[in-house]
């Protein structure tokens, strides 16, 4: 009898632990899904950087356009080229609407990513994408504003890779944050999300114009 009882207790504990583990994993999964949902966190803010043409730029200059801001570096072996390529394909799919959007690729590797390196790199993907870099402090400031994490991981041969937030940020023509785009999104998904946003605003404007 007591044998059965301890077995039952053990089973109950096992189930409870299982549930706890499952719910913990679920909350983890939920966090990764969350980026496409609107959140209360604000991303972005004023910044001063240098574009890939060597010109100083501020966030003010981009007012009036939608911005897609994403972070990476030109030596990035796998994720950044994929993101840049996906972004370029998404812009193609948007057709003429893409003119309303300025994609900004912000380097988290200002040490190696000079404007010249960025210019050559970005041009290989899409001339519509503007590469931005700056001093270490300027890059740190813009990363902070977007809650972007980046961290240098040195290798044994004098080089390094950088782990970094790969999420994309859509900002409105007023400079305000609109939406997160998850890094795993395909070009079709990105184009769809952007089209929805662009249409939404167009609808609102039409509504306002009505007497």
């Amino acid at each position: 009898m007591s044998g059965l009882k301890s077995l039952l207790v053990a089973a109950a504990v096992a189930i409870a632990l299982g549930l706890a583990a499952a719910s913990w994993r679920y909350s983890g999964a939920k966090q990764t899904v969350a980026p496409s949902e609107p959140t209360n966190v604000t991303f972005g803010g004023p910044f001063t950087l240098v574009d890939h043409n060597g010109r100083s730029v501020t966030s003010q200059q981009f007012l009036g356009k939608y911005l897609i801001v994403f972070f990476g570096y030109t030596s990035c072996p796998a994720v950044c080229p994929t993101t840049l390529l996906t972004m370029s394909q998404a812009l193609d799919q948007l057709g003429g609407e893409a003119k309303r959007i300025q994609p900004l690729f912000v380097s988290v590797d200002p040490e190696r990513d000079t404007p010249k390196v960025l210019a050559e790199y970005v041009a290989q993907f899409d001339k519509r994408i503007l590469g931005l870099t700056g001093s270490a402090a300027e890059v740190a400031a813009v990363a902070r504003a977007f809650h972007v994490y980046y961290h240098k991981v040195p290798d044994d041969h004098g080089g390094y890779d950088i782990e970094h937030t790969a999420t994309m940020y859509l900002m409105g023509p007023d400079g305000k944050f609109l939406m997160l785009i998850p890094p795993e999104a395909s070009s079709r998904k990105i184009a769809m999300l952007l089209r929805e946003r662009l249409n939404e605003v167009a609808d609102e404007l039409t509504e306002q114009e009505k007497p």
Partner: protein
Amino acid sequence: MKMAVGRIALVLLAFITCATTVSADDASSKITVSHAWARATVPSAKNGAVFLTITAPPGLSDKLIAVRSSAAEQVQLHRNTMENGIARMQSIAAIELAQGKAVKLDPRGLHVMLVGLKRPLQEGDRITLTLVFEKSGDMSVEVPVLAANAAEPLSPNEASADSPTRSHDMHGHQMENHMD
């Protein structure tokens, strides 16, 4: 448009060149490697990635335990992880190959990492890798270097990427509108 044509040409080139990398002898009982490619790197880059598909034959499970190449100081096996939007790379000891299954190393998952490149990877270059399998031993693979903006040769149109149903629905609606 020019870029699109260029990309298609690259993809075709990748197919043609990759065909030559597949083990020539008795493919049915041996590990085969296909769709090997690398992306060109910027001159300042010290590391580069190689992608390929490895298929173990039916009846033989194996393990990729190391990769050697004279193109870099060191070659590692890496896994990309994406957690809470943060992209990280993790060095892994081996890649398991289940019998009869293809394991795809691509930019979103596993890759061979060339650490400490002796010179940057340039489009049109070819580099040689030696894949070391636990049971099958060494296998030499020639890898074409494609443009920095090259997509995976296997899925240039993102066939399996996401929500094809949704996009079909949208096409459906558009067609209805036209008919109205």
